């Protein structure tokens, strides 16, 4: 029995182009389960494609018993983020530590990216990279709100910081007291 409630059917199926052309009672169990024995006996042996050769460092899941035949060679691990990624790959995909370390490395990699830009004499246009032009074109009100909120947070933080600095006792006095 299905849960069709006739009086609530808002779309007349006879008006739908192609209605039920792919209906098939044999579609149950459906893909992918129905394909489970399509190639019985294959187990782990298959004729492998030629194996890609490369000198680039490729990190590999420890759940693999051998390196897959093709892989991407862009952006090999480097810097501090690369060191963290190498540690992450000591853990299996089932271990939370693997993913947490990779996420941490990703964040550090962002800072490395900015440093790399500056090292090449390029100041990244961060508002531009974040699509500020589209925001200006399609959501001026939203952009104005964001700018106002950020300005308010900036002014508030500055005011708080300034007040704390004026309240701090002069360091020379405390040094004097310690000496006594």
């Amino acid at each position, binding site marked *: 029995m299905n849960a069709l409630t006739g009086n609530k059917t808002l779309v007349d199926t006879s008006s*739908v182009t192609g209605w039920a052309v792919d209906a098939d009672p044999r579609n149950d169990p459906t*893909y992918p389960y129905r394909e489970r024995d399509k190639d019985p006996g294959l187990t782990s042996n298959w004729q492998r494609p030629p194996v890609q050769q490369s000198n680039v460092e490729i990190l590999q899941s420890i759940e693999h018993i051998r390196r897959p035949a093709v892989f991407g060679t862009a952006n090999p691990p480097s810097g501090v983020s690369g060191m963290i990624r190498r540690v992450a790959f000591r853990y299996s*995909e089932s271990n939370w530590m693997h993913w947490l370390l990779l996420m941490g490395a990703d964040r550090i990699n962002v800072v490395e990216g900015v440093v790399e830009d500056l090292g090449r004499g390029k100041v990244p246009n961060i508002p531009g990279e974040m699509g500020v032009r589209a925001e200006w074109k399609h959501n001026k009100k939203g952009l104005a709100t964001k700018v106002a909120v950020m300005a308010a947070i900036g002014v508030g933080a500055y005011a708080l910081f300034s007040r704390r600095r004026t309240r701090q006792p002069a360091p020379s006095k405390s040094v004097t007291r310690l000496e006594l």
Partner: protein
Amino acid sequence: MLAMDYRGPYRVRVEEKKMPRIEHPRDAIVRVTRSCICGSDLHLYHGMVPDTRVGTTFGHEFCGIVEEVGDEVTNLKAGDHVLVPFNIACGQCHFCKQGLFGNCHESNPQATAVGGIFGYSHTAGGFQGGQAEYARVPYADFGATLIPDWMDPDDAVLLTDVVPTGYQAAEMGGIQKGDTVVIFGAGPVGLMAARSAWLFGAGRVIVFDHLEYRLEFARTFGPAEVYNFKEVDDVVVFMKKTTDGLGADVAIDAVGGDAAGNALQWLFGTKLKLEAGNAIALHWAINSVKKGGIVSIVGVYGPTGNIVPIGNVVNKGLTLRANQASVKRLLPRLIDHVKAGRINPKAMITHRIPLEDIADAYHMFSAKLDNCIKPVLIPNAA
């Protein structure tokens, strides 16, 4: 060549990069003519997928013209216009032999849980993607598919992911004639799932989202009954009431980890990254399907974990079915559907944007500006 360049969460730009080269005898180099931004690219853009390295070029939905082929590619030649499935699949491993082309075991050293995917982080193989003027296509002799002469390239590029993903969502639902199907998400994949549900004989198709312009589109594109979950007190109660207290026969999660709709999930999953995204759509799917029903998941989640009511899956006797779409397996049938006019993928394209404006394109799609449903990037070299 010009290519998209990831610089960190919410930060992308176009950079001059080295031309890709043949690195394997089954490679091809393709000059990209169309490349889409996919909803799942937003998971990368938002920094939710581990091992997304600065300098990565995203883009797993693209088509283009073959420029060069490796020694073992005998079925393609320079000048062929091809669409490139987002899965990188060898076609001969244990999993490919079963038609599981989204689960190839010979294309991703970094993980065993997912096969290689173009431009989808090192967790998916570390391949550069197609949001560029040129792309390296591994296993081109198996994946890359000639675009029929009669086919519009705008339809072809959507056959690389969105259309098969939506179609497979419906297929995995095991839909029988007359079934009620509820779909969470009215993005391009949800729209295609709604359209495909009818092809499998659904009797009723319901779509939930919170963006009115997308719901309005789904109403006619599906066609479907559409509801804004922000205007419904409780999605699950609503679904029970509208199905005589039973629940839908099939529920499809076409959202994944970038969902809206639950503050706690958003905080812990989307913002703090303590979960693999916000799983509220999956939560609703599990709870609004009937006992013994099928939940089909094509929404993308990260590789860690999510809080979902798994106890209800047991107690209700549900069947969960999920996968990355097996594009190559589905292409012959989907090409037929396009030819027969049963599906019209290009109707979903709302924006055509030069590759150079990639940062604005990503922000527009991410922030849902200008009623954006599907943006297509057009490289200069196209």
